[in-house]
């Protein structure tokens, strides 16, 4: 390994650690084969753009043309479209994968998603129950509270 390190230090170091993003290691002359994984190609951007146009247009059409009779069904459908579109953006525009930076970006993303889900569902759940279970109170009640 040390022999390798003398010849191509950056690459040997990067490979021994399992980084795949060679494009941002300060050297632009080499490691060009690695850059495609981090930047995405023209095809990637085009696929991502095409998919997100479709995934944006359909929810707007559903709401503006009143496609579903039940607003609940429509809400669930457009939420699903949003979830899919977020994944599309993550993969094709943010070039998210499980390998970049040795897997640390993916780990940070998973952690964030867990926290976001707990925050959102927890807030909505708790506040909904508070809202439905609290007695409506008039200002007189409030003043005479023990």
């Amino acid at each position: 390994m040390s022999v390798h390190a003398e010849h191509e230090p950056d690459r040997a170091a990067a490979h021994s650690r399992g980084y795949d993003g060679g494009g941002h290691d300060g050297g632009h002359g080499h490691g060009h084969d690695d850059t495609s994984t981090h930047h995405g190609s023209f095809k990637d951007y085009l696929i991502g753009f095409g998919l997100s146009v479709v995934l944006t247009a359909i929810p707007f059409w559903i709401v503006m043309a009143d496609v579903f009779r039940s607003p609940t069904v429509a809400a669930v459908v457009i939420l699903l479209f949003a979830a899919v579109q977020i994944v599309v953006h993550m993969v094709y525009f943010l070039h998210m994968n499980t390998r970049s930076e040795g897997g640390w970006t993916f780990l940070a993303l998973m952690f964030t998603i867990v926290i976001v889900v707990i925050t959102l569902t927890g807030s909505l759940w708790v506040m909904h129950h508070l809202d439905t279970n609290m007695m409506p109170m008039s200002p007189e009640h409030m003043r005479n509270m023990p």
Partner: protein
Amino acid sequence: MTMHLDTARREAAATEAEAPVFYDVEEAAHAESSTLLGFWIYLMSDALIFAVLFATFGVLGTRYAAGPSPADLFELPLIALNTSLLLFSSITYGLAMLEVEKRRMGLTLFWLGVTGLFGLGFLVIELYEFYHLIAEGAGPQRSAFLSAFFTLVGTHGLHVTAGILWLVTLMFQLPLHGFIPENHRRLMCLGMFWHFLDVIWIGVFTFVYLMGVLRG
């Protein structure tokens, strides 16, 4: 025998002497990519800020205080236009990054400029919408729904403003210093920031505008 040992020891010493060189270089290679990882972690913490604002809107979004509801206020064609502007700005930023890889300064600046104009168009429409709402008496102090709405959408708008300022800064730095590693890193970070704002906007137009209008 002793000669043999000596050689082995010398070899061991030589490897030990080489070791710091190896570690030093590795550290330099690490420093570059750790910026991107660090920026990613910043984006994740920013996502948490938006998650809290989304949760606030989710709780307060139906409290109209006998004021106007989303269906009364929101003009979906305008929001669709806004969304497409932001979507176009995302792909033009991607095209700029592809030109960066090819080291073509003119086209890089062209696509960055187009991205900035799309971003600016988005901001102008958003400010027009805000101005319109406040002029109608549906300002942030009208109801809990409107307070949460202005906070969430306004925070996203502030992020876009910061992104445009950053973009303009880089459009001056790029011709000045050329495609140096530092500029490349900055462009990568801004790209992550820009695409991230687009991801947040998916949540905004779905959760705030479309579902708001569905609620009636």
